[in-house]
Protein backbone atom coordinates (compact mmCIF):
# COMPACT_ATOMS: atom_id res chain seq x y z
CA UNK A 1 0.00 0.00 0.00
CA UNK A 2 2.82 2.33 1.01
CA UNK A 3 4.71 1.60 -2.19
CA UNK A 4 1.60 2.18 -4.32
CA UNK A 5 1.02 5.60 -2.74
CA UNK A 6 4.62 6.71 -3.30
CA UNK A 7 4.49 5.27 -6.83
CA UNK A 8 1.41 7.37 -7.58
CA UNK A 9 3.12 10.42 -6.04
CA UNK A 10 6.10 9.87 -8.37
CA UNK A 11 3.94 9.58 -11.50
CA UNK A 12 1.75 12.57 -10.61
CA UNK A 13 4.81 14.70 -9.79
CA UNK A 14 6.50 13.79 -13.09
CA UNK A 15 3.28 14.63 -14.94
CA UNK A 16 3.12 18.03 -13.19
CA UNK A 17 6.78 18.70 -14.00
CA UNK A 18 6.37 17.80 -17.68
CA UNK A 19 3.32 20.07 -18.09
CA UNK A 20 3.97 22.94 -15.69
CA UNK A 21 7.63 23.16 -16.71
CA UNK A 22 6.66 24.15 -20.25
CA UNK A 23 4.48 27.04 -19.12
CA UNK A 24 6.02 30.47 -18.66
CA UNK A 25 6.31 31.70 -15.08
CA UNK A 26 3.73 34.21 -13.82
CA UNK A 27 4.16 37.94 -14.38
CA UNK A 28 4.53 38.29 -10.63
CA UNK A 29 7.66 36.17 -10.93
CA UNK A 30 9.08 37.63 -14.13
CA UNK A 31 8.40 41.35 -13.79
CA UNK A 32 10.48 42.06 -10.73
CA UNK A 33 13.35 44.48 -10.23
CA UNK A 34 15.13 42.17 -7.78
CA UNK A 35 15.46 39.18 -10.12
CA UNK A 36 18.74 37.28 -10.14
CA UNK A 37 21.12 38.75 -12.69
CA UNK A 38 22.48 35.57 -14.28
CA UNK A 39 24.30 37.69 -16.80
CA UNK A 40 26.64 40.53 -15.94
CA UNK A 41 25.53 42.26 -19.15
CA UNK A 42 21.87 43.24 -19.09
CA UNK A 43 20.07 44.35 -22.23
CA UNK A 44 19.51 48.11 -21.96
CA UNK A 45 16.04 49.38 -22.75
CA UNK A 46 17.21 51.31 -25.78
CA UNK A 47 15.48 50.99 -29.15
CA UNK A 48 16.61 52.43 -32.44
CA UNK A 49 14.27 54.36 -34.73
CA UNK A 50 14.37 54.06 -38.53
CA UNK A 51 16.28 57.34 -38.76
CA UNK A 52 18.93 56.03 -36.38
CA UNK A 53 17.89 58.08 -33.34
CA UNK A 54 17.60 56.25 -30.05
CA UNK A 55 14.54 55.82 -27.82
CA UNK A 56 15.30 55.10 -24.18
CA UNK A 57 12.43 53.55 -22.23
CA UNK A 58 11.69 55.00 -18.82
CA UNK A 59 9.47 57.47 -17.05
CA UNK A 60 9.37 60.96 -18.52
CA UNK A 61 10.35 63.83 -16.27
CA UNK A 62 9.76 67.48 -16.92
CA UNK A 63 12.92 69.55 -16.93
CA UNK A 64 12.56 73.22 -16.20
CA UNK A 65 15.22 75.93 -16.37
CA UNK A 66 15.26 76.13 -12.58
CA UNK A 67 15.99 72.46 -12.06
CA UNK A 68 18.54 72.29 -14.87
CA UNK A 69 21.40 73.87 -12.89
Amino acid at each position, binding site marked *: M*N*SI*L*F*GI*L*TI*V*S*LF*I*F*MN*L*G*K*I*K*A*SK*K*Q*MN*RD*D*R*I*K*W*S*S*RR*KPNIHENRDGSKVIEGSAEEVSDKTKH
Partner: protein
Amino acid sequence: MSKHSALNTFGRSGNPAFTRNFDNTEAFSQSERMTLDGAVNKTAILLGLCFAGAFVGWNVPSLTLPGFIIGTILAFVTIFRNPAKAGSTAPFYAAFEGMALGGITVYAEMQYPGIGIQAIGLTFGILASLLFCYKSGIIKPTENFRLMLFSATMGIMLLYLVSFIMSFFGSGIGFIHSNGLFGIGFSLFVVGIAALNLVLDFDFIEEGAERGLPKYMEWYGAFSLMVTLVWLYIEVLRLLIKLRSR
Protein backbone atom coordinates in the same frame (compact mmCIF):
# COMPACT_ATOMS: atom_id res chain seq x y z
CA MET B 1 29.66 47.57 -8.18
CA SER B 2 27.42 45.22 -6.24
CA LYS B 3 26.66 45.93 -2.61
CA HIS B 4 27.80 42.37 -1.80
CA SER B 5 31.56 42.13 -1.50
CA ALA B 6 31.43 38.37 -2.24
CA LEU B 7 29.79 39.10 -5.59
CA ASN B 8 32.49 41.65 -6.37
CA THR B 9 35.22 39.14 -5.53
CA PHE B 10 33.86 35.95 -7.12
CA GLY B 11 31.69 37.41 -9.84
CA ARG B 12 27.93 37.18 -10.27
CA SER B 13 27.73 33.52 -9.35
CA GLY B 14 30.07 31.13 -7.59
CA ASN B 15 28.58 28.24 -9.55
CA PRO B 16 30.40 27.93 -12.87
CA ALA B 17 27.57 25.75 -14.24
CA PHE B 18 25.32 28.78 -14.18
CA THR B 19 27.40 31.67 -15.42
CA ARG B 20 29.60 30.44 -18.24
CA ASN B 21 28.45 31.53 -21.67
CA PHE B 22 25.32 33.22 -20.32
CA ASP B 23 26.32 36.38 -22.14
CA ASN B 24 26.65 34.52 -25.41
CA THR B 25 23.43 35.72 -27.08
CA GLU B 26 24.56 36.49 -30.58
CA ALA B 27 22.13 36.47 -33.45
CA PHE B 28 20.46 33.06 -33.52
CA SER B 29 17.43 32.11 -35.52
CA GLN B 30 14.31 31.19 -33.54
CA SER B 31 14.87 27.44 -34.02
CA GLU B 32 18.39 27.72 -32.60
CA ARG B 33 17.26 29.36 -29.38
CA MET B 34 16.71 27.80 -25.97
CA THR B 35 13.06 27.14 -25.07
CA LEU B 36 11.27 25.91 -21.96
CA ASP B 37 9.87 22.97 -23.93
CA GLY B 38 13.34 21.95 -25.04
CA ALA B 39 14.81 22.18 -21.54
CA VAL B 40 11.95 20.13 -20.01
CA ASN B 41 12.16 17.48 -22.77
CA LYS B 42 15.92 17.18 -22.31
CA THR B 43 15.45 16.83 -18.55
CA ALA B 44 12.99 14.00 -19.29
CA ILE B 45 15.61 12.32 -21.51
CA LEU B 46 18.23 12.61 -18.75
CA LEU B 47 15.75 11.23 -16.17
CA GLY B 48 15.00 8.30 -18.50
CA LEU B 49 18.71 7.57 -18.84
CA CYS B 50 19.14 7.88 -15.08
CA PHE B 51 16.36 5.31 -14.51
CA ALA B 52 17.94 3.01 -17.11
CA GLY B 53 21.30 3.34 -15.33
CA ALA B 54 19.59 2.72 -11.97
CA PHE B 55 18.09 -0.51 -13.38
CA VAL B 56 21.61 -1.70 -14.26
CA GLY B 57 22.99 -0.61 -10.87
CA TRP B 58 20.09 -2.31 -9.08
CA ASN B 59 20.88 -5.64 -10.77
CA VAL B 60 24.69 -5.30 -10.59
CA PRO B 61 25.39 -3.45 -7.29
CA SER B 62 29.16 -3.80 -7.78
CA LEU B 63 28.87 -1.00 -10.38
CA THR B 64 27.94 1.53 -7.68
CA LEU B 65 31.44 2.90 -7.04
CA PRO B 66 32.60 2.95 -10.70
CA GLY B 67 29.30 4.62 -11.65
CA PHE B 68 29.74 7.26 -8.95
CA ILE B 69 33.38 8.01 -9.85
CA ILE B 70 32.75 8.21 -13.63
CA GLY B 71 29.56 10.23 -13.06
CA THR B 72 31.42 12.75 -10.88
CA ILE B 73 34.23 13.10 -13.45
CA LEU B 74 31.64 13.66 -16.21
CA ALA B 75 29.89 16.29 -14.07
CA PHE B 76 33.14 18.26 -13.72
CA VAL B 77 33.87 17.85 -17.44
CA THR B 78 30.40 19.18 -18.29
CA ILE B 79 30.76 22.16 -15.94
CA PHE B 80 34.26 23.23 -16.90
CA ARG B 81 34.30 22.30 -20.60
CA ASN B 82 32.63 24.33 -23.29
CA PRO B 83 28.86 24.35 -22.44
CA ALA B 84 28.13 23.84 -26.15
CA LYS B 85 29.26 20.23 -25.65
CA ALA B 86 26.98 19.56 -22.66
CA GLY B 87 24.72 17.55 -24.97
CA SER B 88 27.43 14.91 -25.40
CA THR B 89 28.45 14.53 -21.74
CA ALA B 90 25.21 15.15 -19.79
CA PRO B 91 23.47 11.91 -21.00
CA PHE B 92 26.48 9.82 -19.93
CA TYR B 93 26.55 11.67 -16.59
CA ALA B 94 22.87 10.78 -16.03
CA ALA B 95 23.38 7.11 -16.96
CA PHE B 96 26.46 6.59 -14.75
CA GLU B 97 25.02 8.55 -11.82
CA GLY B 98 21.83 6.48 -12.19
CA MET B 99 23.97 3.34 -11.94
CA ALA B 100 25.42 4.60 -8.66
CA LEU B 101 21.98 5.55 -7.30
CA GLY B 102 20.58 2.11 -8.25
CA GLY B 103 23.36 0.40 -6.31
CA ILE B 104 22.97 2.67 -3.26
CA THR B 105 19.21 2.05 -3.27
CA VAL B 106 19.69 -1.74 -3.35
CA TYR B 107 21.85 -1.57 -0.20
CA ALA B 108 19.26 0.65 1.50
CA GLU B 109 16.40 -1.66 0.41
CA MET B 110 18.16 -4.69 1.93
CA GLN B 111 18.02 -3.05 5.34
CA TYR B 112 14.76 -1.12 5.02
CA PRO B 113 12.37 -2.61 2.44
CA GLY B 114 10.29 -0.05 0.55
CA ILE B 115 12.65 2.86 1.28
CA GLY B 116 13.64 3.33 -2.38
CA ILE B 117 10.17 4.16 -3.70
CA GLN B 118 9.61 6.47 -0.71
CA ALA B 119 12.78 8.42 -1.53
CA ILE B 120 11.87 8.61 -5.25
CA GLY B 121 8.32 9.75 -4.45
CA LEU B 122 9.50 12.42 -2.02
CA THR B 123 12.19 13.69 -4.41
CA PHE B 124 9.77 14.13 -7.31
CA GLY B 125 7.10 15.46 -4.94
CA ILE B 126 9.52 18.19 -3.83
CA LEU B 127 10.41 18.89 -7.49
CA ALA B 128 6.76 19.34 -8.53
CA SER B 129 5.74 21.44 -5.51
CA LEU B 130 8.75 23.76 -5.81
CA LEU B 131 8.14 24.14 -9.54
CA PHE B 132 4.57 25.20 -8.76
CA CYS B 133 5.82 27.63 -6.08
CA TYR B 134 8.32 29.11 -8.54
CA LYS B 135 5.98 29.42 -11.51
CA SER B 136 3.23 31.00 -9.44
CA GLY B 137 5.63 33.47 -7.83
CA ILE B 138 5.21 32.17 -4.28
CA ILE B 139 9.00 31.75 -4.06
CA LYS B 140 10.89 34.67 -5.58
CA PRO B 141 14.61 34.03 -6.01
CA THR B 142 16.73 37.18 -5.52
CA GLU B 143 20.47 37.91 -5.38
CA ASN B 144 20.41 37.58 -1.56
CA PHE B 145 18.56 34.25 -1.90
CA ARG B 146 21.25 32.99 -4.26
CA LEU B 147 24.08 34.24 -2.06
CA MET B 148 22.63 32.53 1.03
CA LEU B 149 22.04 29.27 -0.84
CA PHE B 150 25.52 29.32 -2.33
CA SER B 151 27.08 29.90 1.12
CA ALA B 152 25.01 27.11 2.71
CA THR B 153 25.76 24.68 -0.15
CA MET B 154 29.49 25.36 0.02
CA GLY B 155 29.40 24.99 3.83
CA ILE B 156 27.72 21.57 3.54
CA MET B 157 30.18 20.42 0.86
CA LEU B 158 33.11 21.53 3.04
CA LEU B 159 31.67 19.66 6.05
CA TYR B 160 31.28 16.49 3.96
CA LEU B 161 34.83 16.86 2.62
CA VAL B 162 36.31 17.29 6.13
CA SER B 163 34.26 14.32 7.39
CA PHE B 164 35.47 12.21 4.42
CA ILE B 165 39.13 13.11 5.06
CA MET B 166 38.78 12.50 8.82
CA SER B 167 37.31 9.05 8.13
CA PHE B 168 40.74 7.95 6.79
CA PHE B 169 42.19 8.61 10.26
CA GLY B 170 39.53 6.60 12.07
CA SER B 171 37.43 9.54 13.22
CA GLY B 172 34.77 11.75 11.70
CA ILE B 173 32.10 14.31 12.36
CA GLY B 174 29.71 11.98 14.16
CA PHE B 175 26.57 14.07 14.36
CA ILE B 176 26.06 14.37 10.60
CA HIS B 177 25.69 10.60 10.30
CA SER B 178 23.91 9.91 13.59
CA ASN B 179 20.23 9.05 13.86
CA GLY B 180 19.76 11.27 16.89
CA LEU B 181 17.74 14.47 16.88
CA PHE B 182 20.77 16.53 15.87
CA GLY B 183 21.59 14.19 12.97
CA ILE B 184 18.00 14.21 11.70
CA GLY B 185 17.84 18.00 12.07
CA PHE B 186 21.06 18.31 10.03
CA SER B 187 19.63 16.02 7.32
CA LEU B 188 16.42 18.06 7.21
CA PHE B 189 18.49 21.24 6.78
CA VAL B 190 20.51 19.67 3.95
CA VAL B 191 17.34 18.42 2.20
CA GLY B 192 15.96 21.98 2.46
CA ILE B 193 19.09 23.51 0.92
CA ALA B 194 19.20 20.90 -1.87
CA ALA B 195 15.49 21.52 -2.59
CA LEU B 196 15.92 25.29 -2.75
CA ASN B 197 18.74 24.81 -5.25
CA LEU B 198 16.01 23.53 -7.60
CA VAL B 199 14.50 27.04 -7.56
CA LEU B 200 17.81 28.44 -8.83
CA ASP B 201 17.79 25.86 -11.63
CA PHE B 202 14.23 26.83 -12.60
CA ASP B 203 15.18 30.52 -12.66
CA PHE B 204 18.28 29.81 -14.74
CA ILE B 205 16.24 27.88 -17.33
CA GLU B 206 13.42 30.45 -17.34
CA GLU B 207 15.76 33.39 -17.91
CA GLY B 208 17.78 31.46 -20.47
CA ALA B 209 14.63 30.82 -22.50
CA GLU B 210 13.49 34.42 -22.04
CA ARG B 211 16.80 35.81 -23.27
CA GLY B 212 16.93 33.37 -26.18
CA LEU B 213 20.23 31.69 -25.34
CA PRO B 214 21.65 29.20 -27.86
CA LYS B 215 19.93 25.80 -28.12
CA TYR B 216 22.73 23.86 -26.42
CA MET B 217 22.00 25.68 -23.15
CA GLU B 218 18.88 23.47 -22.92
CA TRP B 219 21.21 20.55 -22.24
CA TYR B 220 23.13 22.67 -19.76
CA GLY B 221 19.95 23.67 -17.90
CA ALA B 222 18.72 20.06 -17.87
CA PHE B 223 22.12 18.93 -16.60
CA SER B 224 22.13 21.44 -13.71
CA LEU B 225 18.62 20.26 -12.76
CA MET B 226 19.83 16.63 -12.83
CA VAL B 227 22.81 17.40 -10.58
CA THR B 228 20.49 18.96 -8.00
CA LEU B 229 17.96 16.10 -8.27
CA VAL B 230 20.67 13.47 -7.73
CA TRP B 231 21.91 15.33 -4.63
CA LEU B 232 18.34 15.76 -3.34
CA TYR B 233 17.58 12.03 -3.82
CA ILE B 234 20.70 11.00 -1.88
CA GLU B 235 19.86 13.39 0.98
CA VAL B 236 16.21 12.27 1.13
CA LEU B 237 17.40 8.63 1.23
CA ARG B 238 19.85 9.45 4.05
CA LEU B 239 17.10 11.20 6.01
CA LEU B 240 14.71 8.24 5.60
CA ILE B 241 17.44 5.78 6.67
CA LYS B 242 18.06 7.83 9.82
CA LEU B 243 14.34 7.98 10.59
CA ARG B 244 13.80 4.25 10.02
CA SER B 245 16.87 3.21 12.03
CA ARG B 246 15.56 4.86 15.22
